[in-house]
Every structure is written in C-alpha cells, then in structure tokens.
C-alpha cells in the first residue's frame, strides 16, 4: 500500500525543482544538454525505424477505415483545383519571369539566387499543443537554426533545432512563430488594360482565378525557388517599363518566341476571337501589387489560422481588406528573405484603441499535409555583415 509521508513529498518537490532547473538551463542554451539530447536522439533512431516499419500498416489501415470519405472528397476537390491551375499556369509563368526581370532591372534581391535543398518530412509533433515537424536532413546538409522552410505553395515555417541528420521545423501555425510580412493589395481591375494577357483571359478573369486558386504568385515564386532558374537579364532592350507601370515586350525578342502562337497552332479551348487577341498582344500588364502595410504574422496554434498584428490603419493610404496578399517582408534582422508567399487575408477584425486591425491570414501551404519541403539556405543580412 502506498503511504503518504513527508519524505515522499520532499522527493516530489525535489523532482519539480530539478525540472525547473533543467528548463532554465536548456532555455538559456547549454552545450551539455544539447549533447545529451543529440545522443538520446541517436539512441532512439533505430527504435523509431523499427517501430515505423511495424506500425505503418496499422496506421494506414486506421486511416483507410476512418478517412476514406474525406479522401474521396479531397481527391475531387484537387481535381477541380488542378483544372483551374492549368488554365492559369502559362500566364503565371510569364508574370513571374517579368517580375524577376524587373527585380534584375532595379537591382533588387531575388529569391532565385538563394540556394535551397529538399528534405522529407519524417515526423510530426506528437503532442496536442506544438506545431512542429521533423525532417530527414540536418547540420550535415548545411541547415541552420532559423532558416525558412517552404513548399510548393509558400512559407511553412522555420528551423528551430538541428542535429547532424535531422532538423525540427516550427510551423507558421505554432503560437511561438512570428515573421515580418508585407500586405499587398490585390490588383485593381480598373487600372489594368483588358485583353492584353497572352493567355487570352481578361484581367477580371485572372483576378477571379487569383481569388479562387490562392493566387498565381504562390506557384510562381516557389517555382523560381525550386528550379533556381537563372532568369534572362534584359540588357538588350527587349523589355522596357512604361510610365504607367506596364512592361512593353518586344515581340522579336528570342525569349518570347515560345509564347507567340502561330497560324494553325491554335491552343485547345480557345476560340477565334481569343486567338486574335493573343496574336496581337505586344504589351503585358504587370499585376499592380501595391504594398499596403508591414506587420508581424503570428501563429495561434493548432486548428487556428495565423494573424497579422502591429498594423497601422490609414485609410488615406490603403485600406486593408480581405483578399489582400501576404508575403514575407525580409529586412535586416528577418530570418526569411523577402517575397516568399505566405497567404491571403480572409478577414479583418477592427480593434478599439491604438492596437490597429487584426488580419486573419489563410496560409497558402496546407501545413497539415506535408510530405516534402524545401529549406531556403538564407542568412539574414544582420549575420552576413558580422
């Protein structure tokens, strides 16, 4: 029989004090604890591998029983989404190339020059509070604490700890995550000429597609990240920037040849009138994504979407509203480079007092279904100069 004594109480008290001591040491950074953690992770590695082999069929069977209907619905929704994305892909690719060309012209930083590396997600947080995933590459691949992590859709988090062969990634939905971001206005329909896009779709149609498919910039910027594309420099005068903010493209430029339809080479699904528009296009509109405001995006925990705080509401300059796009802001101290797509504003909540509005942001990336991710090996400017 368990007997309650003063000695027992002392043992419990001593254990709690030990926990507090360990917690303090670890939060302040202790190399001994780091080594112990690394060693234990190594010891756990074979046990986890063996357990994975044994439990994977069980997990699949459970998912097969409990999530079959969800899977069917998701499959149908994905088919619909793919159909929509195919329609915008050509336009999207052209837009990002033009964007990169503009960056090159203006000597601005571009994501294309930053090395990245693909890693596989091998584990997720096993408690109900943290939003952390584990990936199968670590220090040996050049990963460091703080590096941003993206997938095809956009930003998904940052690395918070690394061992030789693994790393932990804190997701953007975790309550401890914060990153400086820019809020960009969605393109205004009335400021953009119509029927000037090579896809043959009007800008209003494109705007609808942006709204329904989480925005073309999602695919575009990460496409550049994925391939590390070296974009053409426009020193030959093939691309010029007009006063109204449009890019005037010379149809004779070699890089544009693939985009010019020829007689008898009608794209499927386009009617004659659309062909006419495409064939005569020489001016391509840049989507006018005006910077509205800077703020801090913060996660709020599992099941809740992140919010942007520290915004100044100044309607005379710009109105923050649902539909605005959110990208990373970069900056001297920021751990993430500028212009990584984050998400789209879906709700604005006004607060009384000087706090400014809160913006609910739906991330482009679905952090609940991650398989492969890409670590952006970015070093903040503040560390580069040291």
């Amino acid at each position: 029989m368990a007997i309650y004594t003063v000695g027992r109480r002392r043992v419990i008290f001593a254990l709690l004090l030990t926990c507090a001591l360990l917690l303090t040491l670890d939060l302040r950074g202790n190399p001994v604890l780091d080594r112990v953690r690394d060693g234990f992770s190594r010891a756990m590695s074979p046990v986890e591998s063996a357990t994975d082999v044994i439990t994977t069929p069980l997990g699949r069977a459970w998912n097969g029983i409990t999530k079959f209907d969800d899977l069917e619905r998701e499959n149908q929704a994905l088919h619909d989404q793919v159909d929509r994305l195919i329609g915008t892909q050509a336009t999207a690719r052209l837009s990002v190339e033009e964007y990169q060309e503009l960056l090159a012209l203006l000597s601005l930083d571009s994501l294309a020059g930053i090395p990245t590396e693909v890693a596989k997600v091998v584990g997720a947080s096993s408690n109900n509070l943290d939003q952390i995933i584990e990936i199968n590459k670590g220090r040996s691949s050049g990963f460091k604490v703080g590096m941003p992590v993206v997938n095809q859709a956009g930003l998904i988090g940052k690395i918070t700890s690394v061992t030789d062969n693994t790393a932990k990634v804190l997701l953007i939905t975790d309550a401890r995550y914060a990153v400086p971001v820019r809020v960009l206005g969605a393109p205004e329909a009335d400021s953009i000429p119509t029927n000037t896009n090579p896809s043959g779709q009007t800008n209003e149609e494109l705007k609808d597609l942006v709204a329904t498919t989480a925005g073309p910039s999602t695919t575009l910027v990460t496409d550049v990240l994925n391939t590390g594309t070296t974009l053409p420099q426009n020193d030959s005068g093939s691309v010029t920037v007009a006063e109204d903010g449009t890019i005037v493209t010379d149809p004779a430029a070699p890089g544009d040849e693939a985009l010019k339809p020829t007689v008898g080479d009608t794209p499927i699904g386009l009617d004659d009138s659309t062909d006419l528009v495409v064939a005569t296009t020489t001016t391509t509109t840049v989507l006018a994504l005006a910077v509205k405001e800077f703020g801090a995006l913060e996660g709020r925990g599992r099941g809740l979407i992140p919010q942007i705080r520290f915004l100044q509401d100044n309607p005379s300059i710009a109105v923050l509203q649902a539909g605005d796009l959110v990208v990373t802001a970069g900056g001297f101290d920021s751990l993430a480079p500028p212009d990584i797509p984050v998400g789209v504003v879906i709700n604005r909540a006004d607060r009384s007092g000087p706090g400014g509005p809160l913006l609910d942001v739906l991330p482009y990336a679905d952090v609940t279904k991650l398989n492969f991710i890409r670590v952006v090996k970015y070093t903040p400017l503040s560390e580069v100069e040291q």
Partner: protein
Amino acid sequence: MLAAIWQGPFIRLVPVGMVLLALQRSLFVEITIAGVIIQVVLALAAAAGAAAGSERGAIAGFTLGVMYDMVEGLPIGSTAIAMTLAGAVAGLLALIVADPQWWLAMMFTTLGAAVGEVMLPVVRLFTGVADPFEPRLTIIVPVVAIAAGLLSPVFVPLARWCLRIKRAEWVAPPREPAL
C-alpha cells in the same frame, strides 16, 4: 552501484519508455480521436502513479518526461514537470485505498493524465509562449484523460513490472491451534 542501477526502476522503465515514445511519434500521431493525439507516454506516467504511489509515480513521470522532451526537441523539463505531476497526483489519489481494483486504478490514471495535460500549457505560459491555452483544450484534456484511463488495464501492470512493484497479497492469518 551497478547492482543498484540493475535493480532500480530505470533499467526497465527507460527501454519501455523508448518503445512507447516511438509508438507515440509514429502510430499515435496517425490514430487521433476528434483530432486529438492520444498521449500514451503520459498515460504510462499516470499509471505508474496509480500502481506504485506518488513518489515512484513522480520518478517515472520525470524520467519519461525528460525522454519525451529530448526526443521532441522541447525545452528539457517542460513536459517532465507535467508528467511528474501526473504521476504524483495519480499516486496521491491511490492513497485512499490499500489495493485499488482495476476500475479504481483506471479512475486514478484518468485524473492523473488530466492534470498532466492541463499542466502542459501552464508550463508553456511560464516559458514565454504568449497564449498557450487554446480553445481546443476543453476537448483535448477529456480525450487524453479518458484514453489514458482506457489504457490503464494494460499500463498499470506494465508500470508495476517496470518499477518492480509486486501486487499486495492478502494472506489469511494462521489458524490458532484448537485447544
């Protein structure tokens, strides 16, 4: 000293804890109830308290919690505090009966696990997390606690084995010789 280690609780508790941790991170991440991940390691800590009393329950909870923190990459001690309290509380509740039946042990394990799960955001609050009490906590705590209770018929004997606790045997006093 080696003999003390060999005969102490750690020689069995640590390998069992490692296997449970691996299961927690693989199988039980997939098997969720109402979107809540069942905490089997916390369940073992609470079951250890129900089986062996508050002191050994706290020691088991501390050991399992430190292992959990090391594997999960959390600050060492953050989960250990919660699991220590889970084991201690389940053990303190077990004081009310000399040898709890399985259903009483189930109740003690349930309550201990509930305390441990509630303590997790409390500890996060002290480590600087802005708002760790998420609204789903009202679902998370009951699901984790009830799951721990349901696992207790397996985990209480397992904890007894790990901690080398022998079940109390009630022996009738010898008969007095007839005069």
